């Protein structure tokens, strides 16, 4: 800590026999010391304080260990739930598409059925004009039914 070349700028002005190293040696030799009791009580305080720092450090270490684990668990749950939601949405879309297809199929079959009924009626009309009144009534009923 202490260097031996730090004598104040006395050497520049020295006109006596006191040089830098003499001053430093004399200064260090006469340095007073605190009582052993004072130093000992300071060290005791330091030991008590160090225990608190040690506990804080341990808590910090525990946090360092658990925080990444908790973060990983949270990310895993987020990814899992997102995947489940995506799967459900895909299944719903597929079902909806299937229903739409069935509906279209029903419509086309109904259309085909309607055409064949009209064709049959026209044929009957052509073959037997006597049934004209009956056919007319049936046609009216069909139109009413269609509406």
């Amino acid at each position, binding site marked *: 800590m202490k260097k031996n070349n730090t*004598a104040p700028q006395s050497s520049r002005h020295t006109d006596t026999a006191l040089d830098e190293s003499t001053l430093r*040696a004399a200064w260090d030799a*006469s340095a007073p010391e605190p009582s052993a009791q004072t130093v000992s009580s300071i060290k005791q305080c330091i030991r008590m304080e160090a225990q608190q720092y040690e506990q804080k450090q341990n808590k910090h270490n525990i946090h360092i260990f658990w925080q990444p684990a908790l973060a990983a668990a949270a990310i895993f749950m987020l990814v899992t739930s997102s995947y489940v939601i995506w799967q459900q949405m895909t299944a719903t879309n597929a079902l909806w598409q299937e229903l739409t297809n069935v509906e279209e199929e029903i419509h086309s079959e109904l259309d085909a059925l309607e055409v064949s009924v009209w064709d049959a009626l026209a044929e009957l009309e052509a073959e037997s004009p006597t049934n004209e009144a009956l056919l007319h009534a049936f046609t009216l009923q069909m139109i009413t039914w269609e509406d």
Partner: protein
Amino acid sequence: MDDAEHIKQFLRGDANALCAVVDAYRKPLYSFIIQMAGQSDDADEIFQEVWIKAMQALPRYRHKDRFSSWLFKIAHRIIIDRSRKRKLVLSPDMESGVLACPETTTQTTPHDNVSDHELGTTIRRAVAQLPAAQREVFLLRMDGDLPFKEIARIQKTSINTVLARMSYALGKLREQLSSTYKDCT
């Protein structure tokens, strides 16, 4: 391992890391405190307070700053606060230097080189006579090993002012100690 690394270790719960830093700064920080605040009992209290405050503030310590600057700044603030409470003029801004001269309570420690110790004690007595602002610059340089730029930040003044204070301090010390130097060498 440098100070910054020790502090990082402490913040992870290693008490010994900061204890090593306390040991490393024990002498220079205490020397600064005792020269600035004076009485020995107060110095121990301040020394303790500095470390408690530093310990509490360590999580906010920015590692790009020099730890020594940061620590001595805390000591500087505590000494200023205490001097205000006691209505002593210790503020570095007070160029008049009216200040209760701290007792030079340098404890005698066994030392191989007695003349070094004696000279050191004499220098410390002379330093204690310096005006507070000049004394603080000298001590932050000698004890804290801080660059003048950092000292200017701590004293909230320009680097030129700090350099001038150092120059005045050295001039006064040289004047007071000139006879001692000759005796010692």
